[in-house]
């Protein structure tokens, strides 16, 4: 692996008021160009992890190191599209650039580019309420890409989508990742999705939230239905499922 990670946590712990230990002693590193998936049951601290990595939350203990220095170098996609319901698709996508006070000409050009990347051409003037769930998520992805980030953090972005849409979005996300050469961290509770997308999968366990295993996915890209029906795919999924089951046994309520 390359020497300097794009983003790393060093023995980071975090708890919330009320005594919930969301993360304990978590260390991880993201290397340039990687696609890392994080899987784990609900409440194991995945969202907290992203929030710390994005610098939105300061950890109670430990250190976050990052090569990201200015806004726009890091993009984020949440589980909900979190769009402004009153603003058009184009205005929603333009938001990061507007907040960064970029010149109008640049905003227009970048929005056109991002709209094309997620395949939303023709819907620039639509409002979020007029779009399907999958299209809204595309808007959120375009908004994260519009600043040309080096790093993309995604928090269960496709969890609310139907199976078919999700598979299509997975393939398109991989294509974008390869085209743009960005580093991705993708949180999901679907092992299927994790194995399909990632170069590396981190398995988390709850109470306290920690990384208990790391599984490399040795398959190359591009990936498609052939990879989904590969024997190695099923084996990796089985291995991850076993890890998760194992982690859940002692601490389950």
């Amino acid at each position: 692996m390359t020497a300097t990670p794009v983003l790393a946590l060093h023995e980071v712990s975090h708890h919330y008021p009320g005594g919930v230990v969301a993360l304990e002693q978590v260390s991880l590193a993201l290397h340039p160009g990687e696609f890392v998936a994080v899987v784990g049951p609900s409440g194991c601290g995945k969202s907290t992890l992203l929030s710390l990595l994005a610098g939105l939350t300061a950890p109670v203990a430990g250190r976050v190191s990052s090569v990201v220095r200015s806004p726009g170098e890091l993009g984020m996609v949440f589980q909900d599209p979190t769009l402004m319901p009153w603003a058009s698709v184009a205005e929603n996508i333009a938001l990061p650039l507007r907040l960064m006070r970029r010149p109008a000409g640049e905003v227009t050009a970048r929005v056109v580019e991002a709209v094309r990347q997620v395949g939303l051409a023709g819907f620039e003037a639509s409002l979020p309420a007029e779009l399907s769930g999958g299209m809204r998520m595309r808007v959120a992805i375009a908004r994260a890409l519009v600043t040309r980030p080096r790093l993309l953090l995604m928090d269960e972005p496709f969890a609310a989508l139907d199976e078919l849409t999700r598979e299509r979005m997975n393939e398109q996300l991989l294509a974008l990742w390869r085209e743009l050469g960005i580093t991705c961290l993708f949180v999901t509770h679907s092992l299927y999705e994790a194995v399909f997308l990632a170069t590396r999968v981190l398995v988390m366990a709850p109470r306290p939230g920690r990384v208990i295993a790391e599984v490399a996915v040795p398959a190359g890209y591009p990936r498609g239905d052939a990879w989904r029906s590969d024997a190695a795919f099923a084996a990796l999924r089985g291995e991850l499922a076993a890890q998760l089951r194992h982690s859940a046994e002692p601490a389950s309520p």
Partner: protein
Amino acid sequence: MTWLRWLAPLGLGVLVLLAWEVAVRLTGIPVFVLPAPSRILMAGLESAPLLLSSAGYTLRLTLTAFLAAVAGGVLIAVLFTGSRLIEAALYPYAVVLQVTPVVAIAPLVLIWVGVDNASTAVVLLAWIVAFFPVLSNMTLGLRAVDPGLRALFRLYGGSRWQELWRLRLPAALPYLLSAMKVSAGLSLVGVVVAEFVAGSGTSPGLAWRIIEAGNRLQTPRMFAALLLLAAIGIGLFAVLAWLERRLLARWHDSAR
């Protein structure tokens, strides 16, 4: 089915008016107790210039108080969102102002503003009644912001000013518009009540016309003035409901 929404109340109104007319004629009830609709119409037409100019005056005062209430309520709400300290300090007084009956404050305000400035006193009193719903709804709306969007604003280094303009104010718009409908009605109530207290001949508004007609037992004219007041209230409400639909129809659930 839209025609039903218009036709049903209209039909009911016509029926009631007819029944009223017939009942008054049959029973021979004195006109100063209950005039027939036809008498009210005649009285209205006879004194139309006077009543309409009074209505104009009342409407002007109502609109002034209403706009001041909206501006004041929004401004104070924005201050509240900017600083918890300001909110903690001011909010109790806003509540005190709200719960104290206007009629009780009216004589004081009249003394302070001066009996010669009756219309200023009326506007001030109506403002006191009307601004609270705007303040409380707007404060709520400015806070009802998607936490995910707020995180996004922080991620891209958005300033508080940008958060206000791009996020909080648009998010509060539905709250503001619904408060405006309440506040417009309260402005009218405030103006009428204040005029009753402050009027005494100096105030040429509809409220004074009602008192005057009452003193002279001109009940049909009282009814005509009352109808004009109701028309002003309905008109204001209709304009605001239309505005709400125009501004929110495409994105807010309440307007769909």
